[in-house]
């Protein structure tokens, strides 16, 4: 099993590597102790803490019941690179099925990568094991989308929030745990006396707070939030977003914030990556992406966002795409967006556009000078009237 995975990894072509992302300064750790020490080291604010390089996850498609034959693969994540800097929020947006949650699971080491690397403080977590891997897992935590199903209904809130201490007892000695859990409840704005209640006794927003408290329990450095407010009502969403922003400052956290609501992502993110069909289409600062997008998909996505304000709506161009997202098991050749792109030309079917700063903007201080995977990248403001 493990061998097969390694083989798969070795066979993977590096054709769509992202050439321009900065080299990763790997930290050589000859011993487990050295690796753990590297993982526990502090990273300065604004320095890269997580560096993802050419990450690939293919889910095999099999046929046959007794003898399984692989007939193809769902290319859920197909060569993605990005950096996360300490203290920042990186938003990841994209339509259903484009691979956002799969990226999250790979970073959490809940899934095994088919190829590529994820460097946490210079250590490739896809190759770690033992104590070093445990240390990484403690430092990267996750908050899930669905506050209704992600909490075990038969456990009390105290047990749920304290569960990570069972796996990492070094963080909180047994006698200290109850107090720690109560502190955490307090931090996320819940009454510490609720410690013995069950999840069904809470509203959706309160349950999401419980999920956040659990994510904070081990003092992680990175929290990956997969659609943390999508299931909540508008009036409660704002409460949870404000809480998350407050906690980031208080505990010096770095966030990866996955969501399909582009307005919320703009609000909370310092930088934003736009995914389409397993690849990163465009990545940049929030102003670069929202006010100066250069990739046609980003432009279509932003223009499709319904805005309630009649003034900002008027005169806004709406790009209505035709058709649906193609299947990730059989993505189009060349640029994956070409089947829905109004600018597509022959080149788009033949050559995979690399995620890079478009040549004609490179070296300029134009806000269009950010990474975009399009042969014909050009600026188009679709958000402002």
């Amino acid at each position: 099993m493990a061998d097969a995975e390694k083989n798969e990894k070795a066979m993977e072509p590096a054709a769509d590597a992202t050439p321009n992302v900065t080299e990763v300064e790997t930290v050589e750790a000859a011993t487990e102790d050295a690796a753990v020490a590297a993982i526990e080291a502090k990273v300065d604010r604004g320095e890269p803490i997580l560096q993802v390089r050419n990450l690939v996850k293919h889910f095999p498609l099999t046929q046959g019941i007794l003898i399984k034959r692989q007939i193809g693969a769902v290319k859920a994540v197909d060569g993605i690179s990005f950096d996360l800097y300490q203290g920042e929020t990186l938003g990841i947006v994209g339509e259903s099925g484009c691979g956002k949650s799969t990226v999250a699971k790979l970073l959490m080491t809940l899934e095994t990568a088919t190829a590529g690397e994820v460097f946490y403080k210079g250590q490739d977590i896809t190759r770690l094991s033992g104590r070093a891997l445990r240390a990484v897992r403690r430092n990267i935590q996750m908050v899930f989308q669905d506050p209704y199903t992600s909490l075990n209904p038969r456990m009390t809130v105290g047990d749920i929030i304290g569960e990570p201490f069972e796996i990492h007892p070094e963080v909180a000695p047994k006698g200290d745990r109850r107090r720690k859990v109560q502190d955490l409840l307090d931090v996320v704005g819940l009454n510490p006396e609720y410690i013995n209640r069950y999840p069904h006794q809470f509203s959706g927003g309160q349950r999401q707070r419980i999920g956040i408290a659990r994510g904070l329990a081990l003092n992680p450095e990175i929290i990956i939030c997969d659609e943390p407010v999508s299931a909540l009502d508008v009036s409660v969403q704002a409460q949870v977003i404000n809480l998350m922003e407050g906690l980031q400052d208080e505990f010096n956290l770095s966030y990866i914030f996955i969501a399909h609501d582009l307005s919320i992502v703009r609000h909370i993110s310092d930088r934003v990556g736009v995914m389409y069909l397993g690849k990163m289409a465009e990545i940049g600062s929030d102003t670069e992406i929202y006010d100066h997008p250069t990739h046609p998909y980003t432009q279509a996505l932003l223009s499709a966002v319904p805005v309630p304000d009649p003034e900002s709506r008027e005169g806004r161009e709406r790009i209505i795409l035709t058709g649906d997202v193609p299947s990730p098991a059989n993505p189009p050749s060349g640029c994956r967006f070409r089947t829905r792109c109004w600018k597509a030309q022959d080149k788009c079917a033949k050559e995979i556009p690399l995620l890079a700063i478009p040549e004609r903007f490179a070296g300029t201080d134009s806000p269009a000078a950010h990474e975009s995977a399009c042969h014909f990248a050009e600026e188009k403001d679709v958000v402002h009237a």
Partner: protein
Amino acid sequence: MTITDMPADVPVPRSGEDHGSKLLDVRDLHVEFHTRDGIAKAVNGVNYSVDAGETLAVLGESGSGKSVTAQAIMGILDMPPGRIPQGEIFFRGQDMLKMSAEERRKIRGNKIAMIFQDALSSLNPVLSVGYQLGEMFRVHEGLSRKEAKTKAIELMDRVRIPAAKERVSDYPHQFSGGMRQRIMIAMAMALEPDLIIADEPTTALDVTVQAQVMELLAELQREYHMGLILITHDLGVVADVADKIAVMYAGRIVETAPVHELYKRPAHPYTRGLLDSIPRLDRKGQELYAIKGLPPNLLKIPTGCAFNPRCPKAEDICRTDVPALVPVTEQDGTELPGRGSACHFWKETLHG
């Protein structure tokens, strides 16, 4: 029933108006559910109306009673545990709640159709899409199998399903979410109804697909001059297509307004809070405004104004007196047609 019996909180009465001229006119509708824990008052005096060719958006958070109101109109409420203790639902001037089951059945399906949020679970997984579309014509219009299939292909073309002819025998799971929702729209359109109620038709869809589906709905509505009720929790989604909007909270309409005016100048603190808590796409904001607290438990709705425990403007009167939905005006008394608010302090909210 005569006009003089009308409850205090009818929306924005305009002179010379009677429910006979409206396509659909819901008056003082109440719905309650008898549950083990008590009586859940899901709908507590809803008033709204829609004309032919008009689009009404009903905006509210989950549990505010949007779907239950729609189910009462469609006559598909679970009874029991549901009960309608009070109210009327006029369709072309006739109270559907007083009709025989047979009369109602005729209206439903023929005259009023509904589109549900979750297209996958409202389609039968073991029957082909073409068969389910054709069923409408076989049952209601007595067409043959072959004729019904031709009609089904036509409908699929209408809602822009590519290669309709080849795909008519496919099963629901073989279509994407957006296509399934378009098939649901086709089904609702089949008999060219006078009114379509769409309950969160795009909530489960991606933004680019959402835009396609909303555009399709609006286009069909114009073409057939239907009345359309669009239920949603997202004001942005309906802002482009709706003519007017009704905001629901705890089973009541708390504000009505033409769409553009609602955003510019809300006349109810709840509407204002909702608008302030939405982040903006076109610029980076400061900390979000958050409405404090939670929506009420329908088993024990607060006395007075149901919003009072969460309202920044609440005064003593809000805890005792239910505010009626009254017409709102400019400061100088100029009428604001179509606008109403159920707040004791609408003046301060609108003009303050």
